[in-house]
């Protein structure tokens, strides 16, 4: 799989992958964790979140873990997911590096 195939990622996808890269989480935890990074400007609602999660799962970026009770699913990032996240972060960093000098003097 080519991790750059799906780039650029939407801010929402990026934030979800970034949160999951820190460890598995469930849906509500994801909403709160993304919200806590309030500077990102990404605010999730349940319907969109699960829609996105389903898409990521079909792309094999994440996988579901059933918890003990089997009631609430926990989501974990896969190797592919990490590769995509890394590729996107790299792309953004290069983009920033290229763009920044243009306004550097204006503070």
């Amino acid at each position, binding site marked *: 799989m080519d991790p750059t195939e799906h780039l650029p990622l939407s801010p929402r996808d990026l934030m979800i992958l970034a949160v999951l890269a820190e460890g598995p989480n*469930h*849906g*509500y935890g994801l*909403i709160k964790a993304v919200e806590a990074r309030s500077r990102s400007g990404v*605010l999730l*609602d*349940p*319907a*969109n*979140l*699960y*829609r996105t*999660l*389903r898409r990521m799962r079909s792309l094999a970026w994440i996988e579901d873990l059933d918890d003990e009770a089997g009631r*609430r*699913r926990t989501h974990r990032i896969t190797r592919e997911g990490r590769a995509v996240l890394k590729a996107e972060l790299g792309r953004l960093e290069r983009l920033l590096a290229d763009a920044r000098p243009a306004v550097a003097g204006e503070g």
Partner: protein
Amino acid sequence: MRRRPVVRLYAALLLLLPPDLRGYRGEMVEAFERMQAEEKDRGARLRITVRAFGRLPAVMVLEWLEHLGARRAPGRTTTTGGRRMELFRDLRHALRSLAKAPAFALAAVGLVAIGVGSVTTIFSVVDHVLLRALPYPDEERLVYLQNGSHSGPFYQRLDEVETVEVWAAASSRDVRLTGSGEPRLLPLSRVTPGFWELLGARAARGRLLNASDGNDAVVVSGAAWRSRWGGDPGLVGRTLQIDGEPAVVVGVLDPDFEAPEALVDPGTEFWRAFDWTEESLRDTDFNLLQVAGRVRVGVGLESVQAGVDGLLAALAESDVNFRTREGELVRVPVVSLAEETVYEVRRGLGLLLGAVGLLLLVACANLAHLFLARGLGRTREMAVRRALGARTGDLTRHLLAESLAVGLAGGLVGTLLAAGGLRLFTALSPTALPRAASVSLDLRILGFALGMAVLTAVLFGLVPALRGVGAEVSDHLHAGGRTATGTRHSRRLRHGLVAVEVALSLILVASAGLLVRSFVAVQAQETGFRVADVWTVPLSPTGVETAEDLLSLMEGIAGEAAGIPGVAEAAWGLTMPLELTGGNRCCWGTRGVTVDSREVDARVSLHPVSVAYFDLLELELTAGRRWSAGEAAGTPVPVVLSEPLAAAAFGSAAAAVGRSFEASFPAVVVGVTADNRHYGLETPHGPAIYLPVEHLPFGIPKAHLAVRVEAAGVTGDLPRALREAVWSEAPELPVPTVRSLEGWLDRSTAERRFQSALFGTFATLALVLAAVGLYGTLLYMAGERRKEVGIRLALGATRGSVERRLLRSGLGLTLAGVLLGLGGAWYAGRLLETQIFGVERGDPATLLGAAGVLLATAAVASWLPARRAGRTDPVETLRTE
């Protein structure tokens, strides 16, 4: 735990997602619920809600497109996906054909909206107030001790009742809040520490009261914290002046806490602990406490009752206060707290629910024949489409889509109506509905009413399609629109529907008639005292210790008030007429009087009033005179009796004058006054004794000032002037109300006015619906008979005879409905028995009047189509043949 309505709505909408994402529905709902629950701030909660709902449509559309796209991709053309596309096509088609008949579409949508909206509004209130569990932990185990208030010593012995795990008591009164701006009179409740635990109350700031708190600690309710102090977090720790004493705010109650209205005054703003050293709490003479408790798991009400009865019996051994006058044990019934909370409003709301249910039925019947009429008019269209190759299934689906579209659009409008109606209802309702503040739309009943409307639409919308089944296409085409025999059946159905509608409307109109007549009868009651030009000011002078203090304070205030330019007279007493209504009585009374050692058993109200009271209110003296200022302070006490008491004790008014008797004091009758409506227009005052204020035996924090203004009126601001008059004597005394006696009168009948207005509205709606139904049916009938009429006219029938024939059909149907409805109306009158006044429940005039209204409406509704039929141009109709 019950979910918030908004969460339930979200959960319901998520059901519309395609199946693959629907698997996550449970988690989505849970996430949404937790987002809601975790957010304490209302604004933030609203933002979350808007975000979640606002983004839902886009997700919905994208999901369905992807879902259908994915299904189609593998090349399976006849999958469910394909069929779903057909449904969309049908819906589009349905909308297009509805747009071509805007009158029909509007009427049908309107009907669904009225039915769904009104039922949902009223049921939401009923459900919330009567049916839904109280918002307290283990609410099904909470009990309440009836028979008014209870004494401190009784409460403290309640611990001996072992079937109850915790008791709590509360006692409400108004207190003065001073120190900032005008002095205010605000409701305070004293509660035991168990109160908070019993009801699961929590503090939003600071802490709640505990056993070590005294009079100097106070908790502020969440609502007061927001409205009076703008939610200032610095309120905790501040010192307030309550009844002139400093009290420190130790905490703020959770704003979501619903105070139990069976125990404390609604709108209680301050909470304080009991001071058990207080005299009044150690005396079995003083019944101050409202008591509730939580029974142990698995214990029934009967065993709690047995425990309380046992305790009362034990207490009665040593204390006569636990026996009644007749020597029986005092009864303290144990009921569930929920039962107690809704006891008074149950009947009124139940009746409203019945009325609105009838309205829904009328709306559905109307919807039914609207669809029938439209369907029958399209028989030919259906036949043509069938001839062009449409299958029965296609036609059915198309009609189904139409019915669904109407039902859903009506449901949407109805929901909006209900949301507005609910706000209106709670705002206008003059009774303090228990727990009305927290009413919200009920989604189950919305679903039920909507389901009923859609079902009606679907059922009757499909009739034309079903009729077509089995019939030869060519039959209809050959028939050429001429009345085919098959319509006879459906005609009977339509006529039946009209009759039923008329019958249901009659029930509503007759019920409304009874209530309106009761209202008129109440309004027509003679008050027995002057109402015009009188203004009154109820006061609660809390600092007053003795009767002398109260007397000198009130005499001073009355003197000031009499000095206001434009004021003719000022008087005062413990209460004024119409201050207390609806079964409430004030404060001082006696059980019977003794005349020549003969006991006259009666519940007697005692009214200490100033001399000017009789002149100011123009009370009619039927015998004797009022006491003079010089006599007032003398003994035996000079009194004026009400006529009922004079009759009971002395045989007649005239016989009473000059006689002596014993109340709780020795008295001599100087005059007798006609019975008046002191406690409201619907209640005769009954046995009462007016006596000079000078003989008030105790200090009581209650008095009521009245002034009569001169006919020329007062120049300037009378309420302001009256307040100033009070404050010139008592600068810290709150003056919450200055109201004209007309205002008090208005207030005392507001409940009845509201109820009749509501019933009147429902009845009018039903009447209009029935008229529209009749009109539509006759119009259709006229259209059906156009050719017949054309031929008749061509053969020489007069216009008048044609019109009469149709008019007769309309009135005949109405008459059938009226006969059907009279029985129902009579039965409805029985249900209304407790609500009506001055009119018989089966009042023939009301029933006939209602029947007359319906017949008159029917006459108008039939006349218009009849006239149109009469104007048929025979040449024209015959040419189109």
